[in-house]
């Protein structure tokens, strides 16, 4: 019998917060890739007694399948040499070697996500021009159901529509672009700032700056795209990387962005990088408490944290002006790729050191966001992989959240220079429960992504299940799940990857008024180096999801 058809996971402590189950002993019955109410006697069983059972992990924001990631891979041959990955010993199917480091090769990425118990992941920054490349990488990234977010907010066509007050046209364009790129969500990166960088203006500094001499502001871009995503009824609202990333005192911009969009659904990503107080020249401070207070009070806002973890990282972002400054200050390798009519790309390898004052502050800010948040459903665990650290560091992060002793110990070792007055330095006693971890790593992100069959194990859910052996060392417990089931297939057994099926592609094709297509064709003919007919990605694996219905 194939491993896929039926499986009864017996006797585990189930953490399924979406269905109100908090560690009670429950069986999970699986048939043909879905959770079912029951199975006939004699169905194969998996003994999970004494173990912890959760839905498969859902990564709402990472960088692992893009042209930018491929540029980053090229910058780190030493890291790859130091972390070679032999092919896993699979029971059947293709098994591939690869290399790891902060930006692993594609197959290795899929295997490592699976080995971590993550079964769904999104690449959060893809220039639509290069979407074809991302899909090719995803074709070679097994084990995870995956999708991409399409970069918008610095695109020539969009800026022109906003400048003219053509908000409906802007919405139609966003809809068309999602379909053309085979993308799942609208991603805004540094609205207007990338265009400013490319136009020689360096960057924008606030919500009301003009973008490269046009009558367009970051605020207008935020509003136009947030409304577009909400009016289109996208399963995930607009995914925002605010202006002024990594800049001292940037919490003011972050709060202003949130206030501008008050009352409208929006997701603010890697919030940690946007929660700094202090003043230029006078030093940094944490503004996490202030920002998370706003988030706590505004149910329409969701965030992921973008925790910094000490150790090697790779900064990869469309926010090219930030990477230029990082290169200037760190002196490290720097790649910048300007992407016509759409976006940019900057890459600098980086190491976060606990003895470095800014790194220590960033680490503290991230933890404060987690520990001061009142609604775990809206505060997702992420490291902005690999920007704040590799996804392989999620277990260590979970330990910091669940184990105050470990956290306080670590806190003593970090540079204290900018920590005066920070909530964490003053002592935060909170420890996340297993259920809260299940929320911030699967149930929450799945709900925020509108993936109704993910992040939960009710009847009809996708049979993506992760089973952990209990271990007082939380980091060890979460880094080596005992079993992982993906779409009903047992892929990890006794901590070993045994199968590596292809994942599903998660993408959308929203409707739009055809008039935008005629206008876009003219725009492409004048300015694009790619023919309009050749721009949309075709022949993708899996049909687009139907908006408004269960995946």
């Amino acid at each position: 019998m194939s491993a896929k058809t039926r499986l009864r996971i017996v006797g585990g402590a189930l953490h399924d917060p979406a269905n109100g189950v908090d560690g009670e002993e429950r069986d999970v019955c699986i048939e043909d890739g879905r959770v079912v109410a029951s199975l006939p006697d004699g169905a194969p069983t998996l003994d999970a007694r004494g173990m912890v059972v959760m839905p498969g992990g859902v990564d709402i924001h990472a960088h692992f399948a893009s042209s930018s990631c491929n540029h980053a891979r090229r910058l780190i041959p030493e890291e790859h040499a130091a972390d070679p990955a032999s092919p896993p010993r699979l029971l059947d199917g293709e098994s591939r070697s690869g290399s790891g480091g902060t930006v692993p090769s594609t197959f290795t990425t899929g295997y490592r996500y699976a080995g971590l118990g993550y079964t769904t992941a999104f690449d959060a920054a893809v220039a639509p021009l290069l979407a074809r490349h991302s899909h090719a990488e995803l074709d070679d990234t097994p084990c995870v159901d995956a999708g991409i977010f399409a970069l918008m907010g610095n695109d020539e066509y969009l800026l022109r529509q906003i400048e003219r007050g053509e908000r409906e046209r802007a919405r139609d364009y966003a809809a068309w672009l999602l379909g053309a790129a085979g993308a799942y969500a609208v991603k805004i990166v540094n609205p207007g700032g990338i265009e400013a960088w490319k136009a020689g203006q360096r960057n924008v500094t606030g919500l009301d700056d003009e973008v490269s001499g046009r009558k367009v502001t970051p605020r207008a871009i935020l509003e136009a795209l947030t409304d577009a995503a909400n009016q289109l009824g996208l399963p995930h609202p607009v995914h925002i990387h605010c202006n002024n990333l990594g800049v001292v005192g940037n919490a003011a911009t972050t709060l202003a962005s949130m206030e501008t969009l008050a009352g409208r659904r929006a997701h603010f990503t890697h919030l940690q990088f946007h929660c700094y107080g202090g003043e230029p020249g006078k030093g940094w401070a944490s503004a996490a408490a202030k920002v998370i207070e706003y988030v706590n009070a505004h149910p329409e806002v969701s965030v992921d944290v973008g925790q910094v973890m000490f150790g090697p990282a790779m900064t990869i972002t469309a926010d090219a002006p930030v990477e230029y400054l990082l290169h200037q200050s760190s002196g490290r390798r720097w790649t910048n790729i300007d992407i016509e009519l759409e976006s940019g790309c900057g890459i600098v390898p980086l190491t976060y050191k606990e003895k470095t004052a800014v790194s220590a502050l960033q680490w503290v800010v991230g933890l404060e966001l987690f520990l001061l948040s009142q609604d775990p459903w809206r505060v997702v665990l992420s490291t902005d992989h690999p920007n704040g650290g590799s996804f392989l560091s999620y277990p260590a992060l979970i330990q910091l959240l669940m184990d105050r002793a470990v956290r306080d110990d670590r806190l003593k070792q970090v540079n204290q220079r900018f920590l005066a007055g920070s909530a964490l330095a003053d002592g935060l006693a909170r420890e996340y429960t297993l259920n809260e971890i299940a929320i911030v790593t699967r149930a929450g992100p799945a709900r925020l992504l509108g993936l109704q069959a993910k992040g939960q194990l009710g009847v009809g859910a996708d049979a993506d299940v992760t089973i952990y052996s209990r271990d007082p060392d939380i980091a060890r417990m979460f880094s080596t799940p005992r079993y992982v089931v993906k779409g009903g297939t047992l892929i990890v057994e006794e901590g070993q990857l045994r199968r590596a099926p292809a994942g599903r592609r998660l993408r959308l094709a929203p409707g739009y008024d055809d008039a935008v297509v005629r206008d876009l064709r003219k725009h492409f003919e004048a300015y694009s180096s790619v023919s309009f007919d050749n721009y949309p990605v075709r022949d993708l694996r899996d049909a687009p999801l139907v908006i408004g219905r269960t995946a």
Partner: protein
Amino acid sequence: MLQSVTCLGCGCGCDDLTVRVRDGRIAELSPPCPVARQWFGDGSVPREIRTDGQSTTVEQAVEAAAALLSGAEHPVVIIAPDLTTRAQCIAIAVADALRAEVDGTTSDSAAAGMLVAQRRGRAAASLGEIKNRADMVLFWAVDPRERYPRYLERYAAAESATHVRSRRFVSVSVGDDRGPEPAELAAQFAPGEEVDALAIIQATLRGRRPGELPPRLQPAVAIAERLLQGKYIAVVHDAEALGAGRDPQRVEGLLALTQLLNGPTRAALSSLRAGGNRSGAEAALTWQTGYPMRVSFREGHPHYHAGRAGLERLGSDGADALLVAGSVAPLDHPALALGRIPAVVIGPRASAMAGARVAIDTGVAGIHEAGTGYRMDEVPLPLTSLLEHPRGAAATLGLLLSVLRRRAEAKPG
């Protein structure tokens, strides 16, 4: 008549061609481009399948290929640029399964540039960005019109642009490698001087006034000053330059110069690359292995042999079997005659390669086989199938891969 056809004749990757097919042949191409005409020809390619010179079926040929390759101690896989990226990916999978050495056909000159970029990063742009923004273009020892016929018309000198109305050209010639004319500023350096000239340009950009310069290097200061007048500077060079006069340090100087211009102004290096899907092979190798070229799977995982090309390895290191995926011109060279090493060739015109033990003809990417191909700026483009061919390279390599897997599973242990 087919429109918006992508051409892989050179790295420009123009995707605006109109192709008229008549009686199973390519009858007309427009706009007319001499290099494109050469690439497409009339589209006719052989359709044979041979083992040891005898015609056979694809199944038998693939079995023979698998036997030959899996029996080898040190197989080498060469991935040619006339394949779709998917076919190239499958060839890498074959190399992984065989624990072979694998390489694309990155030229020595392009490889040198790649290695420098790995060490220091780079500042680059998609070609449309050069079209839309470059108000100043520095041509370094290249006139693109010769080998990249439409580069100027489509990109660096395009008429329609979002951000520029007019452009200024600075043209540098090095030895016999002439920059284009006319140009607002032209300079000539001897091959032995160009690296010094690049260093002087950088020093000037850094605000350091070089002392007394020999007259032949003085134009470097003027070039630096002129570049600073640009808002967005495209630095154009031929990444495939092979001339005896080319200084291997040139590319380092150009990469450094372009990075440095980002500060006082904005700049991007545009590296001209030859035809076919060579950037696709480099991209696929990178995402599958972590390295863009010259990878060995001998230890069971990817290992980077950055120093030497796969083709060079054939003559040494005890390579005892060869898989060529696609067609590689240097292999027709007598010094590399395939007869010396048992070879399998799967790709366009395989049967025309003298000495291959197994030869399976397939269609050409973007002429017979649809898929994806990468432009010189690593923008992926769709490739269409204009003409029929009984076999695709991706499907045939996929067949080989599955036979190899079956054999490996059947092997005890």
